[in-house]
């Protein structure tokens, strides 16, 4: 132990130590000289004799020094210096290699950090391993109360929360942030403590807390909205137009139990009735809106906990109306938290991680090829080193250290690139109404991944030159200088690399083609309306605090105000925001006198004001639109679309038919019109059967808390219209909260994921193609250069330039053909993993594969053309003279 310590200290203070040693030996010699002089020798002879007696000072010092040295470390250090010097001598090579790797490793790290943040990283809370989530989905507040009552005997703690989108504005346009209602135990169970003030506690659940309505905010919100003010505790914050007192700030890094969201504002459940008032869901046994997480008791397995929970299930779910509540209650490990994004993005993310990994492989192959070319160009130097006694393994180590330096530098730059590009990618996932926020901290997982990538790249890039080195013998390089002829085995390694590159690139190009076409087909889907001129404003009517009964009149007032703005062609209202992936539907449909019966898929529902179809650009086929006369008390009427007619009333005249839906069997709706089809939840579903009610016939007690104001504005005036409409809306109803957007944004939001995948895969495919092209160019150019004697000879013997070009292309053709064959096999095998991500694509479409192959062949021909052309223009006389 002390020895090692001494050695290390020696390593650090080596130069001082060496000087000491030299001086000491010189002193020794001087003392001996003194002795010789005392014995009667002349000064000069004494000096001479003492030197002779001592032998070589350098050798003695070396021997003495060797006692200390950790041989391996010293020689590696030496290799490092040689390698760095070598790289500095060819800056062009170094820059290209490092930049390629930085891009490759950076892109990999970026995707992996997203993958890790979303799927692998445990919640940043105390002992995340013992957390468990109640599957599957959301539960009612009474169920939560039942579970909480059983917490002492079943769990080591339990909490519930409900993710919400909160509006922080006090008037007019909304300022949405992600928030949540949470039960008082949440912070205690997770072991999260406030950095300012206090967190929400069980005493807040009662609603009668001494501070009044309380809220805790994230450190991000504290920094951004309150500029990190020291007196933030006690300040006011308006949430959904209700004032709250901030009682604490959550620690940085804590984002709540939902991964992918940054929960900026947390309110106790007792705040929900203040915001939703009469429509509070706290007492409702039928609405499922919160999630439940528990901490398992130490020493008790999940099986046991589940069994205990199920034993109490009948009491827990008492009164719940949904069928899900009757399935056995199941807790699942939730160390990584809860995330709705996970199931959505797991497959595409994985596909992209693989794709970007393949790009890195192609890049590594290029760098390996570069290194190999460099090693061969340095044959002379290397064989001299061998001749001077360097061992073969030492040379191999030198080459590996070079590639390791390149990889390490590439990885360091790549990390910075990853930090930036990862954030950019996550940003792309956010849409008009959902914000995706992911903690992309470079934790040990990401760093380990990057380090592993760097090592792997170094090995892949470094092994090729080592293999290529086999052909180098001491003194050998001095004999031959670029006289290779066809069949030289030195090119075998590089050729194999090029074949691999072509194969991998083909797989990536096929993937890019499939995803691009998926995105294109989704974009070309008929919508059934014309989104171009449409502006939308989501109106939140709940914020005013007025009873639901007043909402119908308020909506009409707001609609009329918007319609009167110059530039507005029409302004109408719909109850449902379409294209958000879900909506209002009924599985029970009865036609004519028939009782409603279960239908799959369910019938989509919406409610509109008169003129909505015209505003949307959806044609009215027969019958009439809603009119002002359709109101409460008049005959209940509905409008249906073409698909509805085809599905429920085939071959019958639809007008005048009656429809009943849901459990309300008393109300019969009369069909008064038929409109063209339009998409509803998402364009992927295609045209779906839809039925529309008049907004004016909605029961006042159950009037929607939010509606969608749809405005058809003249093109070019959008900005002005938006500004004016905002103004008149606030004038007409100062309490309304609204969020503006365009219908184009709504349409775009339905293909966010596909757009991102298409963009990424196109980028990766293009990159791989470029890298493969460069690799091919390099190997052909190198082969031509090495074979120029042979080529010159052939030309001298009468070969025409076209023959030479053919010669070169034959070689390239073999490489490409081999690569394509491998790549085709790989593609056919690999598409199975991405099939679920495709839309309206035949994954093994021969045309598609042929197209991708053609792209690669074109790239290959392009890459080989330059060197081939140069070969054909060689002057045989010069070449032969030089050779």
């Amino acid at each position: 132990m002390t020895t090692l310590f001494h050695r290390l200290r020696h390593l650090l203070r080596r130069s001082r130590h060496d000087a000491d040693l030299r001086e000491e030996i010189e002193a020794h010699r001087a003392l001996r000289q003194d002795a010789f002089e005392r014995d009667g020798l002349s000064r000069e002879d004494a000096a001479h004799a003492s030197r002779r007696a001592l032998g070589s000072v350098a050798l003695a010092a070396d021997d003495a020094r060797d006692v200390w040295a950790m041989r391996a470390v010293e020689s590696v250090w030496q290799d490092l210096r040689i390698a760095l010097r070598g790289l500095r001598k060819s800056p062009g090579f170094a820059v290209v290699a490092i930049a390629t790797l930085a891009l490759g490793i950076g892109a990999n790290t970026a995707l992996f950090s997203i993958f890790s943040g979303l799927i692998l990283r445990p919640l940043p809370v105390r002992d995340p391993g013992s957390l468990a989530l109640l599957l599957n989905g959301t539960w009612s507040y009474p169920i939560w109360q039942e579970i909480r009552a059983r917490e002492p005997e079943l769990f080591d703690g339990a909490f519930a929360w409900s993710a919400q989108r909160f509006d922080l504005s006090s008037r007019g346009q909304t300022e949405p942030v992600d928030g949540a209602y949470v039960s008082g135990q949440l912070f205690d169970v997770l072991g999260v403590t406030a950095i300012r003030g206090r967190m929400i506690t069980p005493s807040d659940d009662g609603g009668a807390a001494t501070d009044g309505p309380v809220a805790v905010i994230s450190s991000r919100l504290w920094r951004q909205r309150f500029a990190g003010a020291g007196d933030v505790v006690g300040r006011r914050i308006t949430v959904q137009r209700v004032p709250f007192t901030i009682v604490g700030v959550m620690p940085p890094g804590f984002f709540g139990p939902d991964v992918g969201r940054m929960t900026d504002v947390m309110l106790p459940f007792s705040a929900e009735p203040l915001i939703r008032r009469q429509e509070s869901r706290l007492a409702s046994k039928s609405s499922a809106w919160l999630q439940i997480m528990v901490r398992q008791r130490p020493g008790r397995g999940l099986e046991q906990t589940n069994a205990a929970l199920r034993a109490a299930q009948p009491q827990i779910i008492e009164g719940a109306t949904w069928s899900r509540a009757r399935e056995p209650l199941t807790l699942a490990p939730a160390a990584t938290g809860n995330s709705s994004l996970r199931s959505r993005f797991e497959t595409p993310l994985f596909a992209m991680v693989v794709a970007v990994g393949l790009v890195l492989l192609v890049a590594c192959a290029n760098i390996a090829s570069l290194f190999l070319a460099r090693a061969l160009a340095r044959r002379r130097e290397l064989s001299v080193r061998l001749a001077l006694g360097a061992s073969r393994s030492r040379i191999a180590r030198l080459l590996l250290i070079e590639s390791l330096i390149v990889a390490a530098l590439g990885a360091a730059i790549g990390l910075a690139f990853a930090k930036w590009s990862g954030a950019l990618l996550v940003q792309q996932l956010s849409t008009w109404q959902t914000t995706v926020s992911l903690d992309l901290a470079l934790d040990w997982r990401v760093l380990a991944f990057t380090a592993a990538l760097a090592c792997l790249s170094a090995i892949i890039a470094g092994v090729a030159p080592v293999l290529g080195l086999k052909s180098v013998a001491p003194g050998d390089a001095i004999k031959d200088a670029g006289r290779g002829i066809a069949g030289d085995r030195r090119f075998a390694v590089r050729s194999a690399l090029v074949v691999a590159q072509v194969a991998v690139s083909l797989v990536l190009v096929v993937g890019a083609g499939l995803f691009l076409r998926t995105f294109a087909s989704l974009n070309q889907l008929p919508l059934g309306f014309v989104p171009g001129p449409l502006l939308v404003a989501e109106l939140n009517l709940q914020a005013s605090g007025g009873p639901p009964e007043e909402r119908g009149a308020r909506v009409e007032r707001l609609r009329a105000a918007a319609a009167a703005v110059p530039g507005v062609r029409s302004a109408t209202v719909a109850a449902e925001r379409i294209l958000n992936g879900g909506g209002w539907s009924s599985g029970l449909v009865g036609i004519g006198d028939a009782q409603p019966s279960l239908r799959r898929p369910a019938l989509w529902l919406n409610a509109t004001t008169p003129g909505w179809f015209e505003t949307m650009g959806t044609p009215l086929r027969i019958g009439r639109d809603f009119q002002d006369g359709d109101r409460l008390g008049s005959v209940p009427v509905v409008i249906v679309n073409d698909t509805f007619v085809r599905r429920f009333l085939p071959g019958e005249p639809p007008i005048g038919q009656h429809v009943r839906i849901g459990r309300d069997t008393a109300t019969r709706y009369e069909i008064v019109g038929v409109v063209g089809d339009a998409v509803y939840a998402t364009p992927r579903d295609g045209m779906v059967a839809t039925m529309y009610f008049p907004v004016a016939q909605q029961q006042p007690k159950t009037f929607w808390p939010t509606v969608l104001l749809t405005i058809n504005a003249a093109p070019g005036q959008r900005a002005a219209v938006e500004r004016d409409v905002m103004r008149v809306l606030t004038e007409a109803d100062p309490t309304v909260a609204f969020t503006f957007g365009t219908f184009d944004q709504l349409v775009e939001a339905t293909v966010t994921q596909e757009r991102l995948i298409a963009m990424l895969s196109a980028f990766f495919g293009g990159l791989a193609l470029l890298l493969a092209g460069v690799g091919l160019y390099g190997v052909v150019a190198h082969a031509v250069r090495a074979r120029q004697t042979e080529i010159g000879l052939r030309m001298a013997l009468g070969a025409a330039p076209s023959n030479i070009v053919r010669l070169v292309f034959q070689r390239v053709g073999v490489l490409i053909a081999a690569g394509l064959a491998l790549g085709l096999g790989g593609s056919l095998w690999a598409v199975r993993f991405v099939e679920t991500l495709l839309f309206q694509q035949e994954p093994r479409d021969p045309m598609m594969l042929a197209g991708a192959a053609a792209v690669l062949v074109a790239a290959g021909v392009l890459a080989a053309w330059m060197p081939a052309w140069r070969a054909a223009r060689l002057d045989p006389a010069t070449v032969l003279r030089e050779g």
Partner: protein
Amino acid sequence: MGLTNTPSDLLPGTLELLILKSLVSGAKHGYGIVEHLRLASDEVLRVGESALYPALQRLLLNGWVKAEWGASENNRRARYYTLTAAGRKQLAAERAEFDRMVGAIQQVLTT
């Protein structure tokens, strides 16, 4: 003159043992150690520098001696080696081991 008695002529570890022993009587520099060994052995043991300095470095490495710069008798700068406590202990141990070894060799030679 010349270099005699390189380490391979001695039993392994003997040179270190001799150096440690020669330091018992007080701090010495390298040349002093050589002279001490030469005189104390009636000119039989002449230790070469190429053996001495590596051995001294090994002793330093193990922490058995300390080295300090000082002035020599005729006012040259020289590096003086002193025994450490660990060195003394080592000396005792090696000495016992050496005695055992020599005894064993004697026994073999006399039978």
